[in-house]
């Protein structure tokens, strides 16, 4: 039953090369958004509704840049619709 409550959008942010200060800033900003979760040793994920994820992602990226990040890899995935499961 649960998938009907699947997060609409997930954004994964990875700072390259890994840098503790900017990773920590990104994690803090993601946490403050109320949507953030850790998704890997150097990866932060923001999951939730489309608009709130996009807003939270902006502030998280800004926090990482302010902390000195040079390259941030972002992967965004829309997961709310059924066709992802079973699309042939």
């Amino acid at each position: 039953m649960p998938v009907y409550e699947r997060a609409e959008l997930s954004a994964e942010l990875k700072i390259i090369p890994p840098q503790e200060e900017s990773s920590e800033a990104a994690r803090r900003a993601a946490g403050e958004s109320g949507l953030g979760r850790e998704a890997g040793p150097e990866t932060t994920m923001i999951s939730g509704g489309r608009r709130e994820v996009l807003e939270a992602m902006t502030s998280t990226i800004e926090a990482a840049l302010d902390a000195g990040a040079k390259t941030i890899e972002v992967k965004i995935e829309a997961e709310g619709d059924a066709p992802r499961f079973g699309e042939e």
Partner: protein
Amino acid sequence: MARPDGVPKVKGEFEYSSDLHVDGMLWGATLRSPHPHASIRSIDTSEAETMAGVFAVLTHEDVPGRKVYGMEVPDQPVLAWKKIRYEGEAVALVAADHPETARRAMKKISVDYEVLEPVTDAEAAMAEDAPNLHLSGNLLRRVDVRHGDPRATADVVVTGEYEVGMQDQAFLGPESGLAVPDGEGGVDLYISTQWLHVDRDQVAESLDLSPEMVRLTLSGVGGAFGGREDLSMQIHACMLALHASRPVKMVYDREESFYGHVHRHPAKMRYEHGANTDGKLIYVRANLIFDGGAYASSSNAVCLNAATFACGPYDVPNARIESLMLYTNNPPCGAMRGFGAVQVCFAHEAQMDQLASALGMDPVELRIRNAIEPGMTFPFGQEVPYPAPVREILDRVKAMPLPEENETMGRDLRELPGGVSNATHGEGVKRGVGYAVGFKNIGFSAGFDDYSTARVSLSVEDSGPLVRVHTAAVEVGQGLVMVQAQIARTELGVENVIVETADTRIGSAGSTSASRQSYVTGGAVKQACEAVRERIFERVHEEFGEEVDEFSISGENIVVDGRVIAPLVELLGEGNIEETVEFHHRATYPLDEDGQGDVHLQYAFAAHRAVVEVDVELGLVRVVEVATAQDVGKVINPLALEGQIEGGIAQGLGLALMEEIRITDAKIQNASFTDYLIPTILDMPPVRMEILELADPESPYGLKGVGEPPTIASTPAIVAALRDATGKKLTRIPVRPEHIAGLEA
């Protein structure tokens, strides 16, 4: 008709996924954290890697793709890094030539933990000084339902606090699967699960493979009840197989199984009901707090369900419901039969009994007076669809004759609480009767595009006409394979039907959960058969110029009104007619900020009456009988229906009286079937049932899902009967002997 898996299962010949074997396969094993909350300082696998017979030792560094998974929110590590959030969390994997070699290799893996204080319950997780278990804190989900006047007042008010323990699905076949690398970078996984496609997509994501390179085939499933809806070893087995380039089999033992799947959410619920002196409900207020454990799994949906079903199947003009889901360091909780509805039904039904007592009313009469009816509005803003026979099912259980009450002294011990353990010979035994009614949504809700895919082909073989049905719908023991065959026979009139093994070669069927498969996959098979019939009509018209609206297949011929139109073989030759369809049910919508919306598809209702006998001195219980009335829309298979109802009641009885994962300091104390008790045939009473067939105008054949409703109200009915016998409040389930005997509150 006999179910195809019935005889092999009874004879012990059915092949479950734990029986899978392929020559040259390795055995996978999982190293798990002994601590519920810890930081990982380091993991050293070097010694294990050098052991003879060890082919792979893997940690989070070896996860090639996404390092987390999750059905709703990807928050659970495939293998832990840095943090441990529950006891039993997977840390490392081993593949070896023998299970014992794998076990020894795991002992050689050195993990340096910094042990942390665990967050042990949901209320502790809300404390200001509680450590944040995830970046965003410990509140996973909040759903509010606001309906009517929030300040409504009433003549009669009753309040109560209720608690539900952590129940386990306790399926008999432990988690197991076999991953076989295809030599081209892909993998085939043979697995017992509830939803092949959602497994496949999560596995592919973490393996960094395209979905086509991960193929899943259903193996024999030994029960599920929601516990197989989330991943267990799916990604692990595939990682090991791809790494070792050998097939890898994983089988959990019973203890590991308790750590390897999610459980039913424990809940604490505070309720206030207000009514006028006539017994008409004025308002319901409730604060629901659920312990989601360490990871999200299906907690969001449970939180939503609990909020929408919190008032019960009653006409409640004013409601204020607050449903909260918290992260803790307890085992992750997720889907289990009736989820969300089970917990709140225990509370709202106890409240209705308390209200009846305060009003001096008969408890069934109070329920009937407030029963919801088609055309009314649920507190969450959806119009109650037809049929909603709450009043009728309550009338029916009330009217059923009560079991005979024999003198307790001198009775056969097997008919007394405690049985042959020589606990009572009849002294101190009191009888009680209790009633409850519950309801739940069927199918996926809240805007999800819920569908199933079916492929049906018709051909003529040497043995005559043959229909093949192919879906990805999972048979977990409920009888779906039989139902699919029945539908194909009914629609096409062909006796010989093969239901092919479910796999990911065809589109998704959705999950075998939410009591939805007869509706959704049944609907898909029906539509695919209709599409095949349509093609036959066209061919009859093309080949023979016959305009027919209706035909049947009789023997090997197409027949209209007893007249043979054509031999089927002439129409089909050596070919076949094949159609694939997707069946989608009508749209649903998410709740708005006030918890209002057309959120659910279909509702199923069941009422229960329990009769118990209690040894009030020792707190031992014998359930004498459970009577039930349930609306099923249309009976598709009477025997399977009976099985679902009896099985659901057994699981409800388990929650009422014995089934609980006992947790101390976030550690499971009873991870075995010696210590986690489930009802046996000696505990299970006779079930008296009446079935209503009020067709749902929107569903295939008018049917309703039947799997979950028997579990929902059976528990509160049994506890109500215990209260009737003992006079005690009994606000926590499972009720233990010490609660009845008054040794513990």
